């Protein structure tokens, strides 16, 4: 086996239920390529590794290590064992992992096991004389911070949808990774229900345009108005926590402190008051538009274009005006 490049960046990607790479893969490999040679560790279910490896090469992985778990119902531990084996072989300058739930589990466990330092929730990476540096956006975008490790390769979890850079495709070069199980106790995955991709709308994370609705929409039925405007604009749909709590829309669409952070070109807030925790997830958007019937709503403090009015009057008119122009 040939040596791994000295500027290797180990990128951990998992595969989804149909064997496809996770959605964060292009961004992770794109970020890695800008600071070194991306080497992918593909965490795959049995039989899906080689297809996923080709996908990883097409996204810029110079080499791919395939780890097909022998125990798919063990939660997390096989992935950590694979990462430990891969890091040992590759001796990377940094390890990049998605800041998803599974990604955080793998990163946390691996760092605790190897006593590596973690840079959490990065929105970018760069390199200085000493090594790889992670860039973070803290307190809802109020501060920019950089961090790194005192020594050794930092384990960097990367915020989903935050990286626009994409790497150049590489010729496929993959090998199977030999993993010694750690025998650490794991929780079991007893069953799995795949989410039905019922929508052709863009992903909220990393979307260029977002239309979000709040409690002001009043009901699940009336929340459909948010989707109508989103479809007119080709935007993703977001929501406030109050709208999620009221059951208008699933939690996966929540924007804010404890939801998704977006930095879209356009963010339209409909019937959202603009609580500080909501703003924490959207105030770095380029252009913010708000429609709210309360002229004192805090969302107007950060809106580039604010409309004091009723969403049920303003939005249908907006949709017709936009549709009329398309014709």
């Amino acid at each position, binding site marked *: 086996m040939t040596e791994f490049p000295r500027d290797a960046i180990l990128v951990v990607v998992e595969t989804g239920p149909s064997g496809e790479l996770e959605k964060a893969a292009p961004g992770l490999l794109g970020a890695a390529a800008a600071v070194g040679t991306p080497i992918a560790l593909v965490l795959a279910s049995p039989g899906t590794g080689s297809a996923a490896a080709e996908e990883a090469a097409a996204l810029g992985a110079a080499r791919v290590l395939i780890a097909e778990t022998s125990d798919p119902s063990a939660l997390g531990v096989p992935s950590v064992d694979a990462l430990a084996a891969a890091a040992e072989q590759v001796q990377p300058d940094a390890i990049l992992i998605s800041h998803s739930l599974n990604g955080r589990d793998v990163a*946390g466990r691996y760092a605790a096991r190897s006593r*590596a330092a973690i840079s959490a929730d990065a929105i970018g990476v760069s390199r200085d004389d000493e090594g790889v540096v992670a860039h973070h956006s803290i307190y809802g975008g109020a501060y920019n911070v950089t961090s790194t490790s005192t020594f050794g390769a930092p384990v960097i979890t990367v915020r989903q949808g935050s990286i626009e850079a994409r790497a150049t495709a590489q010729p496929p070069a993959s090998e199977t990774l030999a993993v010694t199980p750690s025998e650490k106790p794991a929780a079991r995955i007893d069953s799995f229900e795949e989410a039905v991709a019922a929508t052709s709308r863009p992903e909220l994370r990393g979307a260029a345009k977002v239309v979000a609705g709040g409690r002001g929409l009043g009901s699940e039925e009336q929340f459909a108005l948010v989707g109508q405007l989103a479809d007119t*604009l080709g935007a993703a749909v977001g929501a406030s926590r109050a709208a999620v709590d009221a059951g208008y829309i699933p*939690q996966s669409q929540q924007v804010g402190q*404890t939801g998704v952070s977006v930095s879209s070109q356009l963010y339209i807030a409909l019937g959202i008051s603009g609580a*500080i925790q909501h703003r924490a997830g959207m105030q770095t958007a380029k252009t913010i538009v708000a429609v709210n019937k309360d002229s004192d709503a805090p969302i107007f403090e950060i809106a580039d274009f*604010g*409309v004091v009015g*009723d969403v049920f009057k303003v939005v249908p008119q907006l949709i017709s005006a*936009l549709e009329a122009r398309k014709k």
Partner: protein
Amino acid sequence: MKIIVLVKEVPDTYGDRKLNLETGLADREASEIVIDEIGERALELALTYADANAGTEVAILSLAPEGATATIRKGLAMGAGSATHVCDEALRGADLGLTAETLAAALRRVEFDLVITGNVSTDGSGGMIPAMLAELLDVPLATGLSSVEISDGAVSGTRPVESGVQKVSANLPAVISITEALPGPRFPNFKGIMAAKKKPLEMLTLADLGITADNPDAARSIMLTVAEKPPRAAGVKIIDEGDAGEKLAAFLIENRLA
């Protein structure tokens, strides 16, 4: 059954939160300090189980600066039986690695069945402490649970992931983390507040736990630079006079956003 709930003090998200531009640490003077809401939900889960199952012990563990006693007492007033507060000057600015090592050492001193934490805190947003604890304590881990079932020797729940929803389970002892889909906390009542004053609150230092903050074998995460971004300013605000939808359409078109 002994349940340990991890709670964390954070700057209140309802206020402006500030970083000290020299140290990169949270400016504690600038904000109200509260228990992280997700930690309160974790405690609520433990207390709900304890209400229905006699003989359940619920204890709080918190790594926090001096002066955190008030927020920890709030957890006791909600109904936890005891609390441990790990406090040491050397923990100021502790990274995830040192935090996890310290919490794991505190957990090793007790025979726990279940450790419950929030999925992510509102200040650090790391969301990795539960995983690190499971690894250090050699117990199973089930993170990001949006519903939880605790039984005698096991815990199970639903775990929403990117591609769908898993049902997961683990034998106890185990570490779990929960999401904000779980119910919010009860309010401490007067009786609870009075009782809290008499409940045991143990203070521990790093020396008590046999931890050194500057262990040369462990890599630490360090902050290199901190910069404040200028706050956003408001733009135009119009009042709908029957044509705001059209005006908004014009704005979007003019700015090439539609």
